[in-house]
């Protein structure tokens, strides 16, 4: 339907006049639930340029249908940033980011069950001198906890609109929309006394920020106050630096205070909490001596020295069981559909290069991308559940001690564990790790955890390794466990190494809130899940598709005469030649050029090794599950001199290689997205594949020396 001319003609001016709201709040205060309730599916997820912080922008409508922009800023306890995410929140609010216009208005969400600490951030925000709407979320839970909150009194004290709300049930959203639609929003009335010993410094800094950094007086005052508590402040790309003059003033005051022994930052925090304490006493009528809350009772079990471990183990077992059982159906379905589609094209097009490009390149490539989706969606569904119920924090609490041995903290546990299924969601889940270096280390080692794509390779090699038609189950399990253990030790070993060398930093902190247990919001969990799936398809999918087509091209060209069997076609293709090319490099590991083709094709996904070996050794069976013909073919394979190729030692070495080598383009693409540069994925390819080569070399040569 065409728009009326007067609307269609003026899109740019209306959009620039849309009021922009920044959504801020503490972690766990229900911020994303409120964001979802306000904007629904009208959300855009991107990245702030130059940093690996996600930018979420949504559109909501006023009561008159006027669009309003909402920027969902990363959650923080304070504007004194401790991580790149928090730095973005701080910088957007202070108008320091050129890529994001300073928001006109601020929506600050407070958790009503935990008002005092939540008021700290609001207290800093009120200083900014912008219109603020306060959303008092989780009013139902506060009432349940026996807290009586005098909303009118709070409104009177602060002078800004306070909207009581239950974002999970959608209660209060209408009132919030009404408040957001108001043309005139009052500025905060709340006044508090800046401690006398630092007041002159605040005045100096404010003057300099106004004169030299061109800030509005009120923002300048807020920023001056912030600079005093923002010690060793986190700087991120895209943030406008302070003018040299302001910096000088700040440093000279800090030097002076240091000499005098003044605890300026502490004093400032204390005076804020003094002011907050006064408000809280007026506003919150506490519950009487209540017994332990439901959360306390659950925690007594869930963090118990025995039951805690059993709970964690049970939840993780459930997670993996559901991935391996539920994901199989959609994965088989996708496989079948793609094969059906390829057959359809084959049936309706004349044979030729174009048909092959479509069926073997594009359709196979698309299939290779979306085959990952079921696992990713299931994992993110679980991660979303764990996060929104509050269990995630408990898992981190329990695991922290173990993770600290290698210099990480408990928050790296779930991402690393998820990587046993697939490194992609594991790496995408590292967003919950605030510390930049810890997050990077976790991303770097995550692909060492043996993912499910390695399983078919392990199974094939074990089958070829052990003589006899039936592999004894214990041998199978034993070798498999060894591979998983090797990968796990590798991951922790490298994490330890990186934390000591390359990404050396302060010892990680475990300052974390254990939020009360809450019933998860299904909508939030599903939205989060689909959003992650979409990010994977869009960012990784394009790269994977491209590489798949390149890999197809390499194995299909140059073309041999039509009646050449597939085996010889592959042998004389570019891929075959590449196999020959890398043979000198892999011969010391006991691999020949044919295995080399398998290694190269594994870049599409590790399990492709199995089907490539099927083509190379001309042993394709009708039933994919049946590896027996391939096993026989592998055992029959010979070096040109007639000695067997797949000796038990070579099979074992090949497994070692697959444990450590970085062979998955999807992972590379997602690391590129999550670290915002090619540097880290390239480093990862280098160190992992290098380790794989060295260890395989040692194992093979040592095995040879020992007479295997």
């Amino acid at each position, binding site marked *: 339907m065409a728009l009326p001319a007067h609307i269609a003609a003026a899109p740019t001016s209306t959009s620039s006049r849309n009021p922009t709201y920044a959504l801020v709040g503490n972690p766990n205060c229900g911020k994303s639930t409120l964001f979802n309730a306000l904007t629904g599916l009208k959300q855009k997820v991107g990245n702030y340029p130059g940093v690996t912080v996600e930018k979420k922008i949504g559109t909501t409508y006023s009561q008159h249908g006027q669009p309003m922009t909402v920027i969902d800023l990363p959650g923080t*306890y*304070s504007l*004194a940033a*401790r991580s790149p995410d928090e730095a973005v929140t701080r910088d957007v609010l202070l108008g320091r980011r050129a890529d994001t216009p300073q928001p006109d208005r601020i929506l600050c969400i407070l958790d009503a*069950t*935990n008002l*005092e*600490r939540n008021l*700290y951030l609001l207290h800093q925000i009120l200083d900014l001198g912008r219109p603020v709407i306060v959303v008092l979320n989780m009013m139902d839970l506060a009432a349940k906890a026996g807290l009586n909150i005098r909303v009118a009194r709070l409104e009177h004290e602060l002078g800004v609109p306070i909207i009581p709300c239950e974002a999970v049930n959608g209660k209060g959203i209408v009132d919030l929309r009404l408040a957001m639609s108001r043309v005139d929003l009052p500025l905060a009335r709340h006044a508090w006394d800046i401690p006398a010993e630092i007041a002159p410094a605040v005045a100096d800094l404010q003057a300099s920020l106004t004169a030299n950094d061109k800030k509005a007086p009120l923002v300048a005052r807020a920023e001056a106050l912030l600079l005093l*508590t923002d*010690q*060793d402040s986190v700087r991120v790309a895209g943030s406008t630096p302070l003018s040299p003059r302001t910096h000088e003033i700040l440093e000279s005051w800090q030097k002076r205070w240091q000499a005098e022994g003044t*605890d300026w*930052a*502490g004093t400032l*925090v*204390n005076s804020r*909490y003094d002011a907050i304490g006064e408000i809280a006493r007026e506003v919150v009528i506490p519950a009487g001596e209540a017994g332990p809350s439901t*959360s*306390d009772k659950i*925690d*007594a079990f869930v*963090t*118990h*020295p025995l039951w*805690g*471990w059993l709970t964690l183990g049970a939840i993780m077992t459930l997670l993996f069981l559901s991935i391996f059982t539920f994901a199989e159906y959609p994965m088989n379905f996708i496989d079948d559909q793609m094969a059906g589609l390829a057959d359809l094209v084959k049936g309706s097009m004349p044979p030729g290069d174009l048909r092959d490009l479509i069926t073997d390149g594009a359709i196979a490539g698309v299939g290779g991308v979306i085959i990952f989706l079921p696992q990713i969606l299931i994992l993110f569904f679980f991660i979303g559940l764990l996060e929104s119920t509050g269990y995630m*924090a408990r898992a981190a*609490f*329990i695991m*922290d*001690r*173990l993770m*600290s041995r290698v210099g990480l903290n*408990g928050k790296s546990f779930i991402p690393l564990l998820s990587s046993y299924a697939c490194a992609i969601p594991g790496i995408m889940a590292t967003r919950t790790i605030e510390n930049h270096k810890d997050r990077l280390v976790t991303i770097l080692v995550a692909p060492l955890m043996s993912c499910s794509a390695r399983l078919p390779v392990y199974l094939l090699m074990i089958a070829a390794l052990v003589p006899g038609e039936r592999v004894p189950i214990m041998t199978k399990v034993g070798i498999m466990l060894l591979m998983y253990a090797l990968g796990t030790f590798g991951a922790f070993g490298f994490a330890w190494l990186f934390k000591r060398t390359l990404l050396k930093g*302060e*010892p990680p*902190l*475990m*300052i*974390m*809130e*254990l*939020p009360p247990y809450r019933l998860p919001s299904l909508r939030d969990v599903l939205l989060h899940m689909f959003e992650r799936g979409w990010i994977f398809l869009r960012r990784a999918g394009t790269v994977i598709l491209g590489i798949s087509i390149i890999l197809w091209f390499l194995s299909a060209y140059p073309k041999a005469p039509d009646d050449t069997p597939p085996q010889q076609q592959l042998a004389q293709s570019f891929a075959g030649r590449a196999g020959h090319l890398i043979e000198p490099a892999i011969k010391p590991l006991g691999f020949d050029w044919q295995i080399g083709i398998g290694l190269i094709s594994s870049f599409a996904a590790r399990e492709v090794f199995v089907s490539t070996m099927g083509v190379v050794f001309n042993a394709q069976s009708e039933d994919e599950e049946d590896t027996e013909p391939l096993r026989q073919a592998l055992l029959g394979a010979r070096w040109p001199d007639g000695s067997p190729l797949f000796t038990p030692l070579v099979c074992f070495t090949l497994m070692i290689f697959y444990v450590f080598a970085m062979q998955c383009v999807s992972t590379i693409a997602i690391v590129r997205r999550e670290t915002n540069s090619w540097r880290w994925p390239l480093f990862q390819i280098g160190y992992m594949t290098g380790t794989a080569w060295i260890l395989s070399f040692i194992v093979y040569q040592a095995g040879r020396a020992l007479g295997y």
Partner: protein
Amino acid sequence: MATPVALSALAVGASAIIKEFPKSGTAFLRLREMGMSPGTRITLVRTAPLGDPIEIKVRGYSLTLRKTEAEHVLVEPVS
């Protein structure tokens, strides 16, 4: 009046008033901003199954921190 002890030495279930807090260090500033200012009453709720980190109740919510930080915080036990 009880003598101040390190927060890390507090018994599980015991309550205390925060007395002294390190002045510098980003970790300690963040802990203060999260409500652990001197004069605040806290309760040590539990330690993690492996002995570290610890969970305390402060200003009505649960906060975890490692013993390496907790040993620098001086508290005065209250009965």
